[in-house]
């Protein structure tokens, strides 16, 4: 048993995938924490290990090919990595819930949405069929699905993407979990719907007092929702700070690149239109990671030492950690 003042404390988590072509170090020595009731943003480009981190917390990594190699995930005095699957089932959904990127495919097509929400009450609170369906209607009303008493009898394909994501949120928050892991909950939605969903999540967060781990590659979402931010690159945390510091004084060249790639109002009006993506190149394949700092091939400030040795994640100032040689003495 380990104790921690944080609600969720991830320490030195390593989750690897053992593939035919080699070992994909999808999450490699990742540490961060989440406090009661706060919103933590997790950002990074596609493939940098955000979803794998989330699935590791839920113990949803498919084995084979994946495995949590080492590390601790402390939640309420429990190390989730060490729990049996049976113990884990008491936590999943009930105390830590998760919603996914694709509302179109995340609901089971052959059951009504009412059934799928009601299942949470039957499973975790042992409600009767009738009572759980009534509570499902209530829950759908809370996530602002119009005509919920009618909608509970509909199938996912009869709902729009935004409505389905509301149903997913209703399902996730049904048992008032302490943590909600939202894995890119708005990426697949229209901009207006995105804003509605984010508003809804903010409101429900206060009502239910849930901490949210908000995974995204959209810094706009972070600016709107998160109090603190963890920036990930190729399976490593490269920067961690409160949202204001990240936006006002980004330290890591990767974070700066991400910020510069954000479109700003008036960009098009400027004489020289800037390219949307400011970072050269692509995220390296996990099977062919570069030596030293994993970002150095794309880094505008790369030095000789970056090619040779991986920098450590160091505390630069209170609540601001960076993994970069620019701020370290080798």
């Amino acid at each position, binding site marked *: 048993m380990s104790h921690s003042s944080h609600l969720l404390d991830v320490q030195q988590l390593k989750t690897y995938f053992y593939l035919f072509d080699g070992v994909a170090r999808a999450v490699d020595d990742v540490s961060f924490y989440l406090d009661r009731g706060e919103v933590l943003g997790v950002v990074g480009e596609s493939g940098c290990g955000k979803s794998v981190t989330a699935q590791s917390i*839920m113990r*949803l990594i498919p084995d084979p090919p994946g495995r949590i190699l080492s590390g601790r995930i402390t939640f309420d005095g429990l190390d989730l990595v060490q729990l049996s699957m049976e113990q*884990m*089932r*008491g*936590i*999943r*959904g*009930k105390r830590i*819930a*998760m919603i*996914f990127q*694709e509302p179109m*495919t*995340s*609901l*089971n*097509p*052959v*059951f*009504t949405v009412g059934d799928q929400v009601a*299942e*949470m009450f039957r*499973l*975790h609170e042992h409600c009767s069929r009738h009572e759980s369906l009534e509570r499902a209607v209530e829950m759908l009303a809370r996530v602002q699905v119009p005509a919920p008493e009618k909608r509970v009898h509909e*199938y996912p*394909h009869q709902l729009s993407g935004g409505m389905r994501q509301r149903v*997913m949120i209703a*399902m996730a928050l049904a048992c008032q979990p302490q943590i909600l892991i939202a894995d890119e909950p708005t990426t697949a939605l229209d901009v207006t719907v995105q804003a509605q969903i984010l508003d809804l999540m903010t409101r429900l967060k206060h009502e239910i007092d849930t901490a949210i781990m908000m995974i995204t590659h959209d810094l706009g979402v972070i600016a709107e929702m998160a109090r603190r931010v963890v920036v990930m690159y190729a399976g490593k945390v490269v920067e961690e700070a409160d949202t204001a510091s990240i936006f006002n004084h980004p330290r890591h060249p990767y974070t700066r690149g991400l910020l510069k790639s954000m479109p700003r109002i008036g960009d098009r009006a400027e004489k020289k239109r800037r390219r949307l993506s400011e970072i050269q190149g692509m995220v390296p394949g996990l099977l062919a990671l570069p030596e030293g700092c994993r970002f150095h091939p794309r880094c505008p400030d790369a030095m000789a030492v970056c090619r040779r040795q991986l920098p450590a994640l160091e505390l630069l100032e209170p609540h601001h950690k960076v993994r970069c040689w620019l701020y370290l003495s080798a």
Partner: protein
Amino acid sequence: MATYIAKRLIQGLVVLLGVSMICFIIFRYMGDPVLTMAGKYATFQEREEVRRALGLDKPTYVQYARFIWNAAHGNFGKSYISRVPALGLILERFPATFELATTATLLAFLMGVGLGVLVALKPRAWQNRLIMAGSLGGISMPTFLIGILLIMIFAVYAGVLPPFGRGQTVTIGFWRTGLLTVDGWKHLIMPAVTLATFQLAVLLRLTRAGMREVLTEDYIKTAWAKGLPPLKVIFKHALRNVLIPVVTVAGLQFGEVIAYSIVTETIFQWPGMGNLILTSIFESDQPVVVTYIMLAAFMIISINTIVDILYAILNPKIRYA
């Protein structure tokens, strides 16, 4: 839903009409019914009389209309050989074939789906590799070989199961059943297994493939994330999706099973329709053959319609189509 069912029923009727046309052609132009009925040594007058009695002097379209009219009333004429109504002759044999085909299909479905799920969950376990290899055997081995092997092992060598016939039967109304006696079941086992093998192997492979695909779907990840136990995830959330195509195929196979039963019934001397139809073909007993074809078409079309409706119930997406 109602329009959907109505549409399927009309489609079925059209197909049935097509089959009836083929039957009429067989009936009218294959073999000479007059010769069969009147005998080789009849005079010209006698033959003309038979021709008129059978209505064969009328124009073809009148004959066809009469054929349809009679068929719709369940009258397909009398067997040339036994001189009793062909339909009665076949219906008498129907329970035997139906019981065999139903048992075989149920066996194939339950075993196929059960083993398919098992294999999908642990594809690398050696027992499951063995099951997969076995299913390949089940698909490629001819029915008669399986039947003969079973007879050799269980009837001839071990002597625990009877090699032929239907055993002791009980008659309830018009239905003669072998399912109410131990002896009847003993006789049923080997033919049912023989008939089921191919179907079982197909359903097993279909279930396994479907299961492996469905288990990677997002909604299964959602089900795990809800905290559901494995049994619920697999048998509620995954299997329901896998079953949509499996039930369709199993239903359609039921028609095939009845058709394949000709071979199985011959091997095990099973007194069913398949056995009867084989004899009738050899004896050019057209009314019996035609009745059988019409009846088989009717059954297969009915089954297909039921399967389509079942599919609509299982798959909410097409219910409103």
